[in-house]
């Protein structure tokens, strides 16, 4: 996992649909083809921190297996943060690529 990108990846994942913790971890792993594996020890604190910061909110919902799970939803503030972080990330990537290609 690249330093400082976890929040952005979580936000991006949640932008698609509300998800519970394991769903987020699974989705990141699947989309990245198993390159990024997020363990609960970093995922849950990150979610808790972002919830406090108002970027996500949570609610208890029933899962497909009829269990109760905590689902995380993106807030408007989280959406804004995602856009900002994505833009910044792309600027950085572009800059790094330019340096590497020079």
């Amino acid at each position, binding site marked *: 996992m690249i330093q400082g990108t976890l929040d952005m990846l979580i936000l991006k994942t949640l932008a698609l649909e509300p998800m519970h913790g394991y769903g987020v971890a699974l989705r990141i792993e699947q989309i990245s083809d198993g390159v990024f594996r997020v363990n609960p020890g970093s995922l849950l604190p990150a979610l808790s921190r972002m919830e406090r910061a*108002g970027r996500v909110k949570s609610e208890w919902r029933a899962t497909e297996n009829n269990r109760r799970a*905590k689902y995380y939803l993106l807030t408007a503030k989280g959406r804004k943060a995602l856009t900002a972080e994505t833009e910044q990330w792309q600027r950085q990537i572009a800059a790094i690529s330019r340096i590497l290609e020079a």
Partner: protein
Amino acid sequence: MNVLQNLITGLKSLIQKPRIDSELDEELDSYMAASAAHKQHSGMSPEAATRAAKIEMGSRNSVKHQVWSSRWESFADNFLQDVRLGVRGLIKSPGFTSVALLSLTLGIGANTAIFTLMNAIMLRPLPVQNPQQLVLFGDGRAEGSTNDLPDGTWRLFSYPFFREFSSKTDAFSGVAAINSMPFGLYASVAGNALEPVNIDLVSGSYFSVLGVPPFLGRTISTADDQAPGGGPVVVANYAWFQRKFNGDPAAVGKLIRIQSHDYTLIGVAQPGFFGTNVGRSPDLWIPLSMEKEISPGWNGIGDKFFQSLDILARLKPGVSTPQASASTNLLFKQILRSDYVGANPSQKELASIQHANIELTSAANGLSGLRLTFSLPLKILMTIVGLVLLIACANIANMLLARGVTRAREVAVRMALGASRRRIVLQLLTESSLIAFTGAALGITLAWKASPILLHMAMPGPAPVPVNLTPDLPVLAFTLALTVLTALLFGTLPALKATRLALTPALKEGRGGGTASTRSILAQSLIVGQIALSVLLLASAGLFLRSLTNLTSIDTGFNKQNALLFSLDASAANLPHGSPEEIRSVQLQEQIESRVLAIPGVQSDSFSLFTFNNGSWTENATFQGIPNTPENRHDVFLNNVGNGYFATMGLTIQAGREFSSHDTQTSPKVAVINQTMAHLFFPDGSAVGHHFVLGDDPADPEEIEVIGIVKDAKYTSLGRSGQMAAYFPCTQRVGFYGNFTVRYAGDPGPIITAVRQIVAQANPNILVSGVSTLKEQVANSIATQSLIAQLSAFFGSLAVFLACLGIYGLMSYSVVRRTNEIGIRRALGAQTRTLLWMILRESVILLAFGLALGMPIALASAGILTKLLYQLSPTDPWTFATCAVIVAAMTLLAAWLPARRATKVDPIVALRCD
């Protein structure tokens, strides 16, 4: 979510920690279930899927901990945990806790108490509008009245000068005048019985210049202060109004009778306003136009040479003090030139005007006689208690260091289990703060009780000094800052040291701990510092005590034993003033004198203008045909006395005669002068039979003949010697003089009762306002010195005691640590003496260092005390030697106790101990 919401959510989760915890558990459960379901879905067996999910999750508690730590309330939670842990730790070692708390309570309490006094007397601004704009004319060092025009700095001013100055000045937005001396009189409120009141006479501009609004009714205005006798109104102090009328607004308009004149209560000043003089709070304010009615002997309204006022002024916005000072002095000289000297001033008068000046001083903190008296003593006491607190801190730091060593294993275990160093340092500091804050809380309580007692000890008297000593914001801020500083001072180094340890050896060690730590340089320098500071404190205490002994053993000249002092107040008696009838006052006094003399046990008695240390009237004297010398140009202390005065005071007549019934209003004016005065004017011959006048003018018609020479005595203070004095008979200086002294033998109780009866019979309107003894009068005159000596002795002893406690603790610890070694030495045949010396050596070295450091510092800084010492050099060798001996003896005793215990250890026990 904003900060506030975050705060609220955090607090909620702190309170509902179990619920938050179970929710987190449920989330983790569902996470695992989802993970296992997914794995099962992709082909694993249920058991394998569950196991894999568990492995993925890792330590469940660790995940929970990480989630918990991502929120701010985890810090608060840790803190609460630390506090709990700290309290438990402190309860477990009651010895350490009680010594630490006691020394901090005393240390912080003493600092807060002294600071409370400093704040109230020296620092607190007047409760008026923009107090920093107020300036005082002069330095506020004079009180009373004077009629000479000083050839230099002016301190007191006359009413005509005030009126003229305030009408012409343009540097100030307002000028106000207050009588420099308060009047303690009796008043009858709304027809009730007489009771004592304190009165300040103020100009009509007083309240408006200060910006003090009325709480009820109105304040004194300039219209009340126009014509003499034209403003019979009073404004009440809010505190007095509450006391007398319980805050009833109907009080406004009531009549108050003072000195047989009626005054209307027109209003109550704003709550909290106590006047402009810290330590002297009037009950009533009355316009200066009523001066003659309040003080019939005074004639200040029309007399430009009767200077009795303090002048306060408010700077115009934008005008600086130097600008105001220049403009003030310019106008001042113009007024002097046009009003105070004739059209053709003499050379001398011109020179006087040239030198005359008004010094503007800030009046933001008000005027205060207390401030002038107590500034230096308070600063010195503040230093002393500050040093005591420092010693207490060093002591606690030392105890914590020792504790740190015994707790090395606990710390090592916690660190081995993964606690960070930061977390442990924080925990140890929490413990220190816990001690500090508990000590501070106790200290504030102590200070709250102690400061009024201290003030009363410094200013003894029947009524408490009106200074507000409730802890206010500055005091609480001071104590808070002090507490935090204290906690950091004694907590930081031991905490850092406790966590800087090699884990393996610390875990392996049995009881006790690292050998290096107790003998560390840090612990030793703390002890050296404590010894040095105790030397300093003990030396200053010794100096104050010696100086006090010098003061108390002074020969007062008069006999202070067996003399009762009655203060009589005739303000309600309506005695005649300024008329030939005034002789009736003297006849009344003589009547009381002769009746009291008949009481069994009374040996002699006399009225007088002054006794000792209760005011003064001074003027210089000129003898016919005697040239002026610098010595005899000094002011003479003057007193008006009854015929029995010298016998009552125990002052023997050295030559000539004393006053008798032949000295009457109509006979030639006579005086008895003291030895110093006789000697300064007539070094070679007798003064008896010579004539003098008061003042500089030898042609003054009022010639006074010296009829006797009396023994020298102390007049205004014990510290002042070589004062010239002259006594006049009351019959030739008529008036009612309220000091009545009675020399007695036997039991004073019945005599006091009898005197009260006789006074009441002579005139029921003359009130006995106070009874004391000459001895008390003398003791009260050095109350401040006694207080400083007592306090510094107390704190000096406390300092030595704390330092000894430190040594004792260090040595006890070192003995316990070396039990094994001592056992081996004894088993090998070491002598008790050798062992004793081996252990004592360390303390002797520390003592030597402490003395070597403390003595020069004490000697060098003692110079600051010079002003407060009476006939004693600040480097008095006797004091310093005694103090060194005391510190050495106490230190060695503190070290000897544990050392002796060590030599009594049974070698077998010692060897078995790990």
